Protein backbone atom coordinates (compact mmCIF):
# COMPACT_ATOMS: atom_id res chain seq x y z
CA UNK A 1 0.00 0.00 0.00
CA UNK A 2 1.34 3.38 -0.91
CA UNK A 3 -1.02 5.41 1.24
CA UNK A 4 0.63 6.72 4.38
CA UNK A 5 -0.71 5.42 7.67
CA UNK A 6 -2.02 8.62 9.22
CA UNK A 7 -3.07 7.04 12.48
CA UNK A 8 0.49 6.32 13.49
CA UNK A 9 2.44 9.22 14.95
CA UNK A 10 5.65 10.05 13.15
CA UNK A 11 8.77 9.32 15.16
CA UNK A 12 10.61 12.42 16.30
CA UNK A 13 14.04 13.05 14.84
CA UNK A 14 16.81 14.77 16.74
CA UNK A 15 16.84 18.10 14.90
CA UNK A 16 13.10 18.40 15.02
CA UNK A 17 11.60 21.08 17.30
CA UNK A 18 9.75 19.84 20.39
CA UNK A 19 6.80 22.11 19.73
CA UNK A 20 5.93 23.82 16.51
CA UNK A 21 2.93 26.14 16.32
CA UNK A 22 2.14 27.59 12.90
CA UNK A 23 -0.49 30.21 12.15
CA UNK A 24 -2.71 29.06 14.99
CA UNK A 25 -6.03 30.80 15.64
CA UNK A 26 -8.70 30.16 18.21
CA UNK A 27 -12.16 31.54 18.82
CA UNK A 28 -14.50 31.25 21.80
CA UNK A 29 -17.77 31.55 19.93
CA UNK A 30 -17.45 34.92 18.19
CA UNK A 31 -14.54 36.05 20.30
CA UNK A 32 -11.19 35.78 18.52
CA UNK A 33 -8.99 34.89 21.46
CA UNK A 34 -5.76 33.77 19.72
CA UNK A 35 -4.55 35.37 16.51
CA UNK A 36 -1.86 34.01 14.20
CA UNK A 37 0.32 32.37 16.84
CA UNK A 38 3.70 31.17 15.58
CA UNK A 39 6.08 29.58 18.03
CA UNK A 40 8.86 27.04 17.79
CA UNK A 41 10.37 25.48 20.87
CA UNK A 42 13.50 23.35 20.65
CA UNK A 43 14.62 20.67 23.02
CA UNK A 44 15.77 21.99 26.38
CA UNK A 45 14.46 25.52 25.80
CA UNK A 46 12.88 27.39 28.70
CA UNK A 47 10.30 29.88 27.57
CA UNK A 48 8.55 32.39 29.79
CA UNK A 49 5.24 33.79 28.58
CA UNK A 50 3.97 37.02 30.10
CA UNK A 51 1.36 39.60 29.34
CA UNK A 52 -1.66 41.31 30.86
CA UNK A 53 -4.54 39.28 32.25
CA UNK A 54 -6.93 38.09 29.55
CA UNK A 55 -4.31 38.27 26.81
CA UNK A 56 -4.66 34.57 25.98
CA UNK A 57 -1.58 33.12 27.67
CA UNK A 58 -3.42 30.28 29.37
CA UNK A 59 -5.46 29.54 26.28
CA UNK A 60 -2.33 29.29 24.18
CA UNK A 61 -0.53 26.79 26.37
CA UNK A 62 -3.72 24.83 26.97
CA UNK A 63 -4.03 24.32 23.22
CA UNK A 64 -0.71 22.48 23.27
CA UNK A 65 -2.16 19.52 25.19
CA UNK A 66 -5.69 19.88 23.84
CA UNK A 67 -7.37 21.16 26.95
CA UNK A 68 -8.59 23.73 24.44
CA UNK A 69 -9.16 23.12 20.76
CA UNK A 70 -7.64 25.42 18.13
CA UNK A 71 -9.62 26.12 14.97
CA UNK A 72 -7.01 27.11 12.47
CA UNK A 73 -3.30 26.49 11.97
CA UNK A 74 -1.08 23.66 13.09
CA UNK A 75 0.31 22.43 16.38
CA UNK A 76 2.96 19.74 16.10
CA UNK A 77 4.42 18.24 19.25
CA UNK A 78 7.46 16.01 18.79
CA UNK A 79 6.43 15.21 15.25
CA UNK A 80 2.81 14.42 16.09
CA UNK A 81 0.25 16.82 14.74
CA UNK A 82 -2.61 17.66 17.07
CA UNK A 83 -5.86 16.69 15.35
CA UNK A 84 -9.19 15.25 16.42
CA UNK A 85 -7.59 11.81 16.32
CA UNK A 86 -7.71 10.53 19.89
CA UNK A 87 -4.50 8.53 19.34
CA UNK A 88 -2.59 11.70 18.51
CA UNK A 89 -4.05 13.48 21.52
CA UNK A 90 -3.07 10.61 23.81
CA UNK A 91 0.40 10.50 22.29
CA UNK A 92 0.90 14.22 22.88
CA UNK A 93 -0.50 14.15 26.43
CA UNK A 94 2.00 11.38 27.14
CA UNK A 95 4.84 13.79 26.32
CA UNK A 96 3.41 16.94 27.87
CA UNK A 97 3.00 17.52 31.61
CA UNK A 98 1.03 20.42 32.98
CA UNK A 99 1.01 22.36 36.25
CA UNK A 100 -1.95 24.60 37.04
CA UNK A 101 -2.42 27.81 38.96
CA UNK A 102 -4.75 26.15 41.45
CA UNK A 103 -2.76 22.87 41.65
CA UNK A 104 -5.82 20.74 40.78
CA UNK A 105 -4.68 17.88 42.98
CA UNK A 106 -7.24 15.14 43.56
CA UNK A 107 -8.45 15.88 47.10
CA UNK A 108 -9.85 12.39 47.76
CA UNK A 109 -6.49 10.71 47.14
CA UNK A 110 -3.32 10.85 49.19
CA UNK A 111 -0.27 12.66 47.87
CA UNK A 112 1.32 9.39 46.78
CA UNK A 113 -1.90 8.15 45.19
CA UNK A 114 -2.10 11.43 43.26
CA UNK A 115 1.33 10.68 41.85
CA UNK A 116 0.71 7.00 41.09
CA UNK A 117 -2.80 7.14 39.69
CA UNK A 118 -1.95 7.77 36.05
CA UNK A 119 1.03 5.38 36.13
CA UNK A 120 -1.28 2.61 37.28
CA UNK A 121 -4.32 3.40 35.12
CA UNK A 122 -2.76 4.92 32.00
CA UNK A 123 0.64 3.23 31.90
CA UNK A 124 -0.74 -0.02 33.41
CA UNK A 125 2.16 -0.23 35.81
CA UNK A 126 1.99 -2.55 38.86
CA UNK A 127 1.17 -0.60 42.02
CA UNK A 128 4.44 -1.40 43.76
CA UNK A 129 6.50 -0.08 40.87
CA UNK A 130 4.32 3.01 40.50
CA UNK A 131 4.74 3.82 44.19
CA UNK A 132 8.50 3.60 43.85
CA UNK A 133 8.42 6.11 41.03
CA UNK A 134 5.99 8.29 42.97
CA UNK A 135 8.31 8.34 45.98
CA UNK A 136 11.30 9.10 43.77
CA UNK A 137 9.69 12.26 42.45
CA UNK A 138 8.29 13.27 45.83
CA UNK A 139 11.87 13.09 47.08
CA UNK A 140 12.95 15.20 44.17
CA UNK A 141 10.48 17.95 45.11
CA UNK A 142 11.56 17.42 48.74
CA UNK A 143 8.33 16.26 50.37
CA UNK A 144 8.60 12.45 50.64
CA UNK A 145 7.47 12.69 54.28
CA UNK A 146 4.03 13.96 53.19
CA UNK A 147 3.31 10.97 50.93
CA UNK A 148 0.50 9.53 53.07
CA UNK A 149 -1.25 12.83 53.72
CA UNK A 150 -4.15 14.27 51.76
CA UNK A 151 -3.67 17.42 49.67
CA UNK A 152 -6.02 19.35 51.97
CA UNK A 153 -3.55 18.88 54.81
CA UNK A 154 -0.64 20.54 52.98
CA UNK A 155 0.29 24.18 52.46
CA UNK A 156 -0.15 25.76 49.03
CA UNK A 157 3.54 25.57 48.23
CA UNK A 158 3.67 21.90 49.18
CA UNK A 159 0.57 21.19 47.10
CA UNK A 160 2.10 22.82 44.04
CA UNK A 161 5.27 20.78 44.48
CA UNK A 162 3.14 17.63 44.65
CA UNK A 163 1.45 18.73 41.43
CA UNK A 164 4.87 19.08 39.80
CA UNK A 165 5.89 15.64 41.06
CA UNK A 166 2.62 14.19 39.77
CA UNK A 167 3.38 15.47 36.28
CA UNK A 168 7.01 14.37 36.38
CA UNK A 169 6.01 10.81 37.30
CA UNK A 170 4.67 10.40 33.78
CA UNK A 171 8.15 11.16 32.48
CA UNK A 172 7.12 13.99 30.12
CA UNK A 173 9.57 15.61 27.74
CA UNK A 174 7.82 18.99 27.92
CA UNK A 175 6.38 20.75 30.95
CA UNK A 176 3.77 23.51 30.79
CA UNK A 177 3.28 25.80 33.78
CA UNK A 178 0.26 28.09 33.97
CA UNK A 179 1.00 30.76 36.60
CA UNK A 180 2.21 28.14 39.10
CA UNK A 181 2.94 30.67 41.84
CA UNK A 182 0.06 33.14 41.45
CA UNK A 183 -2.19 31.43 43.97
CA UNK A 184 0.52 31.12 46.60
CA UNK A 185 1.26 33.17 49.69
CA UNK A 186 4.49 35.13 49.20
CA UNK A 187 6.57 33.00 51.58
CA UNK A 188 5.81 29.87 49.55
CA UNK A 189 6.64 31.20 46.11
CA UNK A 190 10.36 30.56 46.50
CA UNK A 191 10.05 26.85 47.27
CA UNK A 192 8.06 26.31 44.08
CA UNK A 193 10.37 28.46 41.97
CA UNK A 194 13.38 26.59 43.35
CA UNK A 195 11.80 23.31 42.27
CA UNK A 196 11.22 24.75 38.81
CA UNK A 197 14.76 26.08 38.56
CA UNK A 198 16.10 22.65 39.46
CA UNK A 199 13.91 21.14 36.78
CA UNK A 200 15.22 23.65 34.24
CA UNK A 201 18.79 22.75 35.19
CA UNK A 202 18.04 19.09 34.47
CA UNK A 203 17.38 20.03 30.83
CA UNK A 204 13.59 19.88 30.76
CA UNK A 205 11.83 21.72 27.95
CA UNK A 206 9.54 24.19 29.69
CA UNK A 207 6.94 26.80 28.86
CA UNK A 208 6.02 28.90 31.88
CA UNK A 209 3.31 31.49 32.04
CA UNK A 210 4.49 33.60 34.95
CA UNK A 211 5.00 37.12 36.17
CA UNK A 212 8.01 36.18 38.27
CA UNK A 213 10.49 38.33 36.40
CA UNK A 214 13.38 37.16 38.55
CA UNK A 215 12.66 33.63 37.42
CA UNK A 216 12.46 34.78 33.80
CA UNK A 217 15.83 36.52 34.03
CA UNK A 218 17.68 33.60 35.57
CA UNK A 219 16.05 30.65 33.86
CA UNK A 220 14.48 31.60 30.54
CA UNK A 221 16.14 31.38 27.13
CA UNK A 222 13.39 33.44 25.66
CA UNK A 223 10.60 35.66 26.91
CA UNK A 224 7.35 36.01 25.01
CA UNK A 225 5.02 38.92 25.54
CA UNK A 226 1.38 38.51 24.60
CA UNK A 227 -1.41 41.05 24.40
CA UNK A 228 -4.88 40.86 22.88
CA UNK A 229 -4.38 37.29 21.75
CA UNK A 230 -1.20 37.99 19.81
CA UNK A 231 2.49 37.45 20.39
CA UNK A 232 3.69 41.05 20.43
CA UNK A 233 7.33 40.58 21.23
CA UNK A 234 9.79 37.73 21.61
CA UNK A 235 13.35 38.15 22.79
CA UNK A 236 16.08 36.81 25.03
CA UNK A 237 15.53 37.90 28.62
CA UNK A 238 18.31 40.52 28.81
CA UNK A 239 17.14 42.30 25.70
CA UNK A 240 13.52 41.90 26.66
CA UNK A 241 13.88 43.61 30.02
CA UNK A 242 16.55 46.17 29.19
CA UNK A 243 15.42 47.12 25.73
CA UNK A 244 11.75 46.37 25.08
CA UNK A 245 10.77 47.19 21.51
CA UNK A 246 7.07 47.60 21.62
CA UNK A 247 5.07 50.28 23.43
CA UNK A 248 2.69 47.77 24.92
CA UNK A 249 5.63 45.78 26.26
CA UNK A 250 7.10 48.90 27.83
CA UNK A 251 3.77 49.77 29.42
CA UNK A 252 3.36 46.24 30.77
CA UNK A 253 6.90 46.12 32.16
CA UNK A 254 6.50 49.51 33.81
CA UNK A 255 3.35 48.24 35.53
CA UNK A 256 4.82 45.07 37.00
CA UNK A 257 8.36 46.14 37.84
Amino acid sequence: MSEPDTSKPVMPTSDQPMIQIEGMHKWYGEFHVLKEINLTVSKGERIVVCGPSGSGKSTMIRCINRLEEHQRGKIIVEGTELTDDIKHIDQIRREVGMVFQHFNLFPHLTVLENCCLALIWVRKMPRREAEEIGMKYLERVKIPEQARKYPGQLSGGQQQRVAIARSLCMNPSIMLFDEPTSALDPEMIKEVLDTMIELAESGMTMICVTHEMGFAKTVANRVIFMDGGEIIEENDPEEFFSNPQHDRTKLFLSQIM
Partner: protein
Amino acid sequence: MSLHKEPHPDLPPPMTSVGVIGWLRKNLFSSAPNTVLTLIVAYLIYISAVPLVQWALIDADWVGDSRDACTGGGACWVFVSVRFDQFMYGFYPESEYWRVNLAFGLLVALMVPLFLERFQRKGWLSAFILFIYPFIAYTLFYGGSLGLKEVETSLWGGLMLTLVLSGVGIVASLPIGIVLALGRRSSMPIVKAASVVFIEFWRGVPLITVLFMASVMLPLFLPEGTHFDKLLRAMIGIVLFQSAYMAEVVRGGLQAIPKGQYEAANALGLSYWKTMGLIILPQALKLVIPGIVNTFIALFKDTTLVLIIGLFDLLAMIQTAFTDPKWLGFSIEGYVFAALVFWVFCFGMSRYSQSLERKLHTGHAR
Protein backbone atom coordinates in the same frame (compact mmCIF):
# COMPACT_ATOMS: atom_id res chain seq x y z
CA MET B 1 14.82 42.11 83.80
CA SER B 2 15.32 39.64 81.01
CA LEU B 3 13.81 40.13 77.58
CA HIS B 4 13.01 36.42 77.43
CA LYS B 5 9.71 36.30 79.19
CA GLU B 6 8.60 32.92 80.54
CA PRO B 7 5.86 31.49 78.29
CA HIS B 8 2.44 31.95 79.81
CA PRO B 9 1.22 28.62 81.23
CA ASP B 10 -2.00 27.07 79.87
CA LEU B 11 -4.76 27.74 82.38
CA PRO B 12 -7.93 25.70 82.74
CA PRO B 13 -11.01 27.49 81.35
CA PRO B 14 -13.27 29.23 83.89
CA MET B 15 -15.73 26.89 85.62
CA THR B 16 -18.79 28.62 84.21
CA SER B 17 -17.87 27.78 80.61
CA VAL B 18 -17.38 24.03 80.92
CA GLY B 19 -19.13 21.06 82.43
CA VAL B 20 -22.86 20.53 82.92
CA ILE B 21 -23.50 23.92 84.46
CA GLY B 22 -21.55 25.70 81.76
CA TRP B 23 -23.43 23.84 79.06
CA LEU B 24 -26.82 24.57 80.62
CA ARG B 25 -25.99 28.21 80.99
CA LYS B 26 -24.72 28.60 77.48
CA ASN B 27 -27.42 26.63 75.70
CA LEU B 28 -30.60 26.86 77.74
CA PHE B 29 -30.46 29.90 80.00
CA SER B 30 -28.28 32.40 78.17
CA SER B 31 -30.91 35.18 78.22
CA ALA B 32 -34.36 35.93 79.60
CA PRO B 33 -36.28 34.97 76.43
CA ASN B 34 -34.13 31.88 76.10
CA THR B 35 -34.93 30.89 79.68
CA VAL B 36 -38.68 31.38 79.09
CA LEU B 37 -38.52 29.23 75.92
CA THR B 38 -36.60 26.55 77.74
CA LEU B 39 -39.25 26.41 80.47
CA ILE B 40 -42.14 26.33 77.98
CA VAL B 41 -40.57 23.53 75.95
CA ALA B 42 -39.75 21.57 79.09
CA TYR B 43 -43.41 21.86 80.13
CA LEU B 44 -44.64 20.72 76.68
CA ILE B 45 -42.33 17.72 76.76
CA TYR B 46 -43.58 16.91 80.23
CA ILE B 47 -47.29 17.00 79.40
CA SER B 48 -46.88 14.92 76.24
CA ALA B 49 -44.23 12.43 77.24
CA VAL B 50 -45.70 11.38 80.55
CA PRO B 51 -49.03 10.05 79.17
CA LEU B 52 -47.19 8.41 76.29
CA VAL B 53 -44.85 6.54 78.59
CA GLN B 54 -47.80 5.67 80.80
CA TRP B 55 -49.70 4.23 77.82
CA ALA B 56 -46.90 2.53 75.95
CA LEU B 57 -44.90 1.12 78.83
CA ILE B 58 -46.35 1.40 82.33
CA ASP B 59 -50.02 0.50 81.71
CA ALA B 60 -49.25 -1.74 78.73
CA ASP B 61 -49.86 -5.48 78.52
CA TRP B 62 -47.15 -7.59 76.97
CA VAL B 63 -47.95 -11.25 77.41
CA GLY B 64 -50.94 -13.39 76.52
CA ASP B 65 -52.54 -14.89 73.45
CA SER B 66 -55.86 -13.10 73.09
CA ARG B 67 -57.37 -9.66 73.73
CA ASP B 68 -58.57 -10.87 77.14
CA ALA B 69 -55.01 -10.58 78.34
CA CYS B 70 -55.21 -6.80 77.88
CA THR B 71 -56.53 -5.46 81.15
CA GLY B 72 -54.07 -2.72 82.08
CA GLY B 73 -55.84 0.03 80.14
CA GLY B 74 -52.66 0.95 78.25
CA ALA B 75 -51.28 -0.38 75.00
CA CYS B 76 -52.11 -3.96 74.12
CA TRP B 77 -48.82 -5.24 72.71
CA VAL B 78 -50.26 -8.73 72.81
CA PHE B 79 -51.85 -7.86 69.47
CA VAL B 80 -48.41 -7.35 67.97
CA SER B 81 -46.80 -10.37 69.56
CA VAL B 82 -49.62 -12.72 68.51
CA ARG B 83 -49.43 -11.44 64.94
CA PHE B 84 -45.67 -11.00 64.90
CA ASP B 85 -44.86 -13.81 62.47
CA GLN B 86 -47.27 -12.49 59.87
CA PHE B 87 -45.92 -8.97 60.24
CA MET B 88 -42.47 -10.33 59.53
CA TYR B 89 -43.10 -12.97 56.86
CA GLY B 90 -46.56 -12.29 55.39
CA PHE B 91 -48.12 -15.48 54.08
CA TYR B 92 -44.80 -17.25 53.73
CA PRO B 93 -45.27 -20.89 54.92
CA GLU B 94 -44.33 -21.20 58.55
CA SER B 95 -42.26 -24.34 57.95
CA GLU B 96 -40.05 -22.35 55.57
CA TYR B 97 -39.39 -19.30 57.79
CA TRP B 98 -35.87 -20.57 58.33
CA ARG B 99 -35.04 -19.78 54.69
CA VAL B 100 -35.91 -16.14 55.16
CA ASN B 101 -34.04 -16.00 58.45
CA LEU B 102 -31.02 -17.65 56.84
CA ALA B 103 -31.00 -15.23 53.91
CA PHE B 104 -31.16 -12.11 56.10
CA GLY B 105 -28.79 -13.62 58.67
CA LEU B 106 -26.31 -14.30 55.89
CA LEU B 107 -26.63 -10.73 54.66
CA VAL B 108 -25.95 -9.31 58.11
CA ALA B 109 -23.00 -11.67 58.56
CA LEU B 110 -21.58 -10.62 55.19
CA MET B 111 -21.98 -6.94 55.96
CA VAL B 112 -20.32 -6.97 59.37
CA PRO B 113 -16.73 -7.10 57.98
CA LEU B 114 -17.50 -4.01 55.86
CA PHE B 115 -17.72 -2.00 59.07
CA LEU B 116 -14.45 -3.34 60.48
CA GLU B 117 -11.55 -0.97 60.11
CA ARG B 118 -9.00 -3.77 59.75
CA PHE B 119 -10.75 -5.89 57.13
CA GLN B 120 -8.76 -5.60 53.88
CA ARG B 121 -10.87 -7.20 51.16
CA LYS B 122 -13.82 -4.80 51.33
CA GLY B 123 -13.99 -4.44 47.54
CA TRP B 124 -14.30 -8.15 46.90
CA LEU B 125 -16.82 -8.61 49.69
CA SER B 126 -18.95 -5.73 48.38
CA ALA B 127 -18.84 -7.24 44.91
CA PHE B 128 -19.94 -10.58 46.36
CA ILE B 129 -22.83 -8.96 48.21
CA LEU B 130 -23.93 -7.02 45.13
CA PHE B 131 -23.54 -9.66 42.44
CA ILE B 132 -23.59 -13.14 44.03
CA TYR B 133 -25.67 -12.71 47.15
CA PRO B 134 -28.87 -11.72 45.29
CA PHE B 135 -28.88 -15.12 43.58
CA ILE B 136 -28.41 -16.90 46.91
CA ALA B 137 -31.21 -14.86 48.47
CA TYR B 138 -33.49 -15.46 45.49
CA THR B 139 -32.85 -19.21 45.63
CA LEU B 140 -33.62 -19.29 49.34
CA PHE B 141 -36.74 -17.12 49.09
CA TYR B 142 -38.26 -18.60 45.97
CA GLY B 143 -36.99 -22.17 46.20
CA GLY B 144 -37.94 -24.57 43.44
CA SER B 145 -34.39 -25.90 43.28
CA LEU B 146 -31.86 -27.60 45.57
CA GLY B 147 -34.75 -29.52 47.10
CA LEU B 148 -36.35 -26.34 48.44
CA LYS B 149 -40.10 -26.07 48.18
CA GLU B 150 -41.27 -23.41 45.75
CA VAL B 151 -42.80 -20.37 47.47
CA GLU B 152 -44.65 -18.09 45.07
CA THR B 153 -43.93 -14.38 45.35
CA SER B 154 -47.62 -13.74 46.07
CA LEU B 155 -47.01 -15.38 49.45
CA TRP B 156 -44.10 -13.11 50.31
CA GLY B 157 -45.09 -10.35 52.66
CA GLY B 158 -44.54 -8.35 55.80
CA LEU B 159 -41.20 -6.87 56.71
CA MET B 160 -39.50 -9.43 54.50
CA LEU B 161 -41.25 -8.02 51.42
CA THR B 162 -40.51 -4.45 52.50
CA LEU B 163 -36.83 -5.31 52.79
CA VAL B 164 -36.73 -7.18 49.49
CA LEU B 165 -38.38 -4.30 47.63
CA SER B 166 -36.27 -1.59 49.22
CA GLY B 167 -33.06 -3.63 49.02
CA VAL B 168 -33.48 -4.22 45.31
CA GLY B 169 -34.57 -0.61 44.85
CA ILE B 170 -31.54 0.77 46.65
CA VAL B 171 -29.01 -1.50 44.99
CA ALA B 172 -30.35 -0.96 41.48
CA SER B 173 -31.35 2.72 41.55
CA LEU B 174 -27.91 4.07 42.47
CA PRO B 175 -25.99 2.68 39.47
CA ILE B 176 -28.84 3.46 37.07
CA GLY B 177 -29.06 6.95 38.54
CA ILE B 178 -25.31 7.46 38.07
CA VAL B 179 -25.50 6.40 34.43
CA LEU B 180 -28.46 8.72 33.86
CA ALA B 181 -26.68 11.63 35.54
CA LEU B 182 -23.59 11.11 33.38
CA GLY B 183 -25.87 10.82 30.35
CA ARG B 184 -27.56 14.09 31.17
CA ARG B 185 -24.19 15.85 31.27
CA SER B 186 -22.89 14.08 28.18
CA SER B 187 -21.77 16.08 25.18
CA MET B 188 -23.45 13.57 22.87
CA PRO B 189 -26.86 15.05 22.03
CA ILE B 190 -28.73 11.76 21.65
CA VAL B 191 -27.46 10.33 24.94
CA LYS B 192 -28.24 13.61 26.63
CA ALA B 193 -31.75 13.87 25.20
CA ALA B 194 -32.56 10.27 26.09
CA SER B 195 -31.43 10.82 29.69
CA VAL B 196 -33.38 14.06 30.04
CA VAL B 197 -36.57 12.50 28.67
CA PHE B 198 -36.23 9.46 30.92
CA ILE B 199 -35.55 11.48 34.05
CA GLU B 200 -38.26 14.05 33.44
CA PHE B 201 -40.83 11.39 32.58
CA TRP B 202 -40.30 9.34 35.72
CA ARG B 203 -40.02 12.36 37.97
CA GLY B 204 -43.22 13.75 36.54
CA VAL B 205 -45.53 10.85 37.43
CA PRO B 206 -46.56 9.86 40.97
CA LEU B 207 -45.27 6.52 42.21
CA ILE B 208 -48.87 5.30 42.68
CA THR B 209 -49.48 5.80 38.97
CA VAL B 210 -46.29 3.96 38.15
CA LEU B 211 -47.33 1.03 40.29
CA PHE B 212 -50.82 0.98 38.78
CA MET B 213 -49.37 1.05 35.29
CA ALA B 214 -46.99 -1.75 36.18
CA SER B 215 -49.68 -3.96 37.64
CA VAL B 216 -52.76 -3.16 35.54
CA MET B 217 -51.69 -1.70 32.23
CA LEU B 218 -48.47 -3.54 31.49
CA PRO B 219 -50.16 -6.95 31.20
CA LEU B 220 -52.49 -5.51 28.56
CA PHE B 221 -49.54 -4.86 26.28
CA LEU B 222 -47.93 -8.23 26.83
CA PRO B 223 -48.90 -11.20 24.66
CA GLU B 224 -51.76 -13.31 26.00
CA GLY B 225 -50.67 -15.92 28.50
CA THR B 226 -47.25 -14.51 29.31
CA HIS B 227 -46.68 -14.66 33.00
CA PHE B 228 -44.83 -11.67 34.36
CA ASP B 229 -44.50 -11.74 38.10
CA LYS B 230 -46.38 -8.96 39.87
CA LEU B 231 -43.65 -8.41 42.43
CA LEU B 232 -41.08 -8.13 39.67
CA ARG B 233 -43.22 -5.55 37.89
CA ALA B 234 -43.56 -3.51 41.06
CA MET B 235 -39.81 -3.73 41.59
CA ILE B 236 -39.04 -2.48 38.10
CA GLY B 237 -41.49 0.38 38.59
CA ILE B 238 -39.89 1.40 41.89
CA VAL B 239 -36.35 1.11 40.51
CA LEU B 240 -37.03 3.23 37.42
CA PHE B 241 -38.91 5.81 39.47
CA GLN B 242 -36.23 6.16 42.13
CA SER B 243 -33.32 6.10 39.71
CA ALA B 244 -34.70 9.27 38.11
CA TYR B 245 -34.49 10.98 41.50
CA MET B 246 -31.10 9.47 42.15
CA ALA B 247 -29.88 10.81 38.82
CA GLU B 248 -30.72 14.36 39.84
CA VAL B 249 -29.04 13.96 43.21
CA VAL B 250 -25.88 12.63 41.56
CA ARG B 251 -25.98 15.37 38.94
CA GLY B 252 -25.93 17.92 41.74
CA GLY B 253 -22.70 16.36 42.95
CA LEU B 254 -21.17 16.25 39.48
CA GLN B 255 -21.86 19.95 39.02
CA ALA B 256 -20.01 20.79 42.20
CA ILE B 257 -16.71 19.32 40.98
CA PRO B 258 -14.41 22.09 39.71
CA LYS B 259 -13.39 22.07 36.07
CA GLY B 260 -9.76 21.85 37.14
CA GLN B 261 -10.27 18.24 38.22
CA TYR B 262 -11.28 17.23 34.70
CA GLU B 263 -8.37 19.22 33.26
CA ALA B 264 -5.80 17.65 35.54
CA ALA B 265 -7.14 14.19 34.71
CA ASN B 266 -7.09 14.93 30.97
CA ALA B 267 -3.60 16.37 31.13
CA LEU B 268 -2.45 13.11 32.74
CA GLY B 269 -3.98 11.19 29.84
CA LEU B 270 -6.91 9.57 31.69
CA SER B 271 -9.81 8.57 29.43
CA TYR B 272 -13.41 9.73 29.97
CA TRP B 273 -14.46 6.63 31.91
CA LYS B 274 -11.31 6.55 34.02
CA THR B 275 -11.68 10.25 34.78
CA MET B 276 -15.26 9.67 35.86
CA GLY B 277 -14.65 6.47 37.78
CA LEU B 278 -11.43 7.44 39.54
CA ILE B 279 -11.62 11.21 39.95
CA ILE B 280 -15.05 12.73 39.47
CA LEU B 281 -17.57 10.19 40.81
CA PRO B 282 -15.72 9.38 44.05
CA GLN B 283 -15.76 13.09 44.91
CA ALA B 284 -19.24 13.81 43.58
CA LEU B 285 -20.85 10.87 45.38
CA LYS B 286 -19.12 11.79 48.61
CA LEU B 287 -20.55 15.29 48.37
CA VAL B 288 -24.10 14.05 47.91
CA ILE B 289 -24.16 11.25 50.50
CA PRO B 290 -26.89 13.12 52.43
CA GLY B 291 -29.00 13.41 49.26
CA ILE B 292 -28.42 9.78 48.30
CA VAL B 293 -29.40 8.53 51.73
CA ASN B 294 -32.38 10.85 51.70
CA THR B 295 -33.53 9.17 48.50
CA PHE B 296 -32.90 5.73 50.00
CA ILE B 297 -35.02 6.63 53.01
CA ALA B 298 -37.81 7.96 50.78
CA LEU B 299 -37.63 4.76 48.72
CA PHE B 300 -37.79 2.63 51.84
CA LYS B 301 -40.94 4.36 53.04
CA ASP B 302 -42.48 4.53 49.55
CA THR B 303 -42.46 0.74 49.30
CA THR B 304 -45.57 0.84 51.49
CA LEU B 305 -47.48 2.04 48.41
CA VAL B 306 -47.33 -1.47 46.92
CA LEU B 307 -50.32 -2.32 49.07
CA ILE B 308 -52.57 -0.63 46.50
CA ILE B 309 -51.63 -3.23 43.90
CA GLY B 310 -52.22 -6.12 46.25
CA LEU B 311 -48.75 -6.76 47.61
CA PHE B 312 -48.63 -7.19 51.36
CA ASP B 313 -45.67 -5.35 52.80
CA LEU B 314 -45.27 -4.71 56.54
CA LEU B 315 -47.84 -1.92 56.69
CA ALA B 316 -50.36 -3.85 54.60
CA MET B 317 -50.00 -6.90 56.84
CA ILE B 318 -50.63 -4.75 59.91
CA GLN B 319 -53.67 -3.14 58.34
CA THR B 320 -55.01 -6.54 57.38
CA ALA B 321 -54.74 -7.62 60.99
CA PHE B 322 -57.03 -4.74 62.05
CA THR B 323 -59.90 -6.42 60.22
CA ASP B 324 -59.59 -9.64 62.19
CA PRO B 325 -62.86 -9.75 64.21
CA LYS B 326 -60.96 -11.07 67.22
CA TRP B 327 -58.72 -8.03 67.30
CA LEU B 328 -60.95 -5.12 66.33
CA GLY B 329 -59.88 -1.79 67.80
CA PHE B 330 -56.12 -2.17 68.09
CA SER B 331 -55.07 -0.03 65.17
CA ILE B 332 -53.09 2.42 67.34
CA GLU B 333 -50.81 -0.35 68.56
CA GLY B 334 -50.42 -1.58 64.99
CA TYR B 335 -49.53 1.83 63.59
CA VAL B 336 -47.16 2.59 66.46
CA PHE B 337 -45.40 -0.70 65.83
CA ALA B 338 -45.18 0.00 62.08
CA ALA B 339 -43.84 3.49 62.76
CA LEU B 340 -41.25 2.12 65.16
CA VAL B 341 -39.97 -0.49 62.69
CA PHE B 342 -39.73 2.02 59.85
CA TRP B 343 -38.09 4.57 62.10
CA VAL B 344 -35.44 2.09 63.26
CA PHE B 345 -34.39 1.32 59.69
CA CYS B 346 -34.47 4.92 58.49
CA PHE B 347 -32.61 6.18 61.53
CA GLY B 348 -30.01 3.45 61.00
CA MET B 349 -29.46 4.60 57.42
CA SER B 350 -29.20 8.19 58.52
CA ARG B 351 -26.59 7.41 61.19
CA TYR B 352 -24.62 5.27 58.79
CA SER B 353 -24.51 8.07 56.25
CA GLN B 354 -23.18 10.46 58.88
CA SER B 355 -20.43 8.09 59.92
CA LEU B 356 -19.57 7.50 56.26
CA GLU B 357 -19.28 11.24 55.67
CA ARG B 358 -16.94 11.58 58.61
CA LYS B 359 -14.84 8.65 57.45
CA LEU B 360 -14.49 9.97 53.90
CA HIS B 361 -13.60 13.47 55.02
CA THR B 362 -10.04 14.17 53.90
CA GLY B 363 -8.47 17.32 55.21
CA HIS B 364 -9.83 20.81 55.06
CA ALA B 365 -12.60 21.88 52.79
CA ARG B 366 -11.30 24.08 50.02
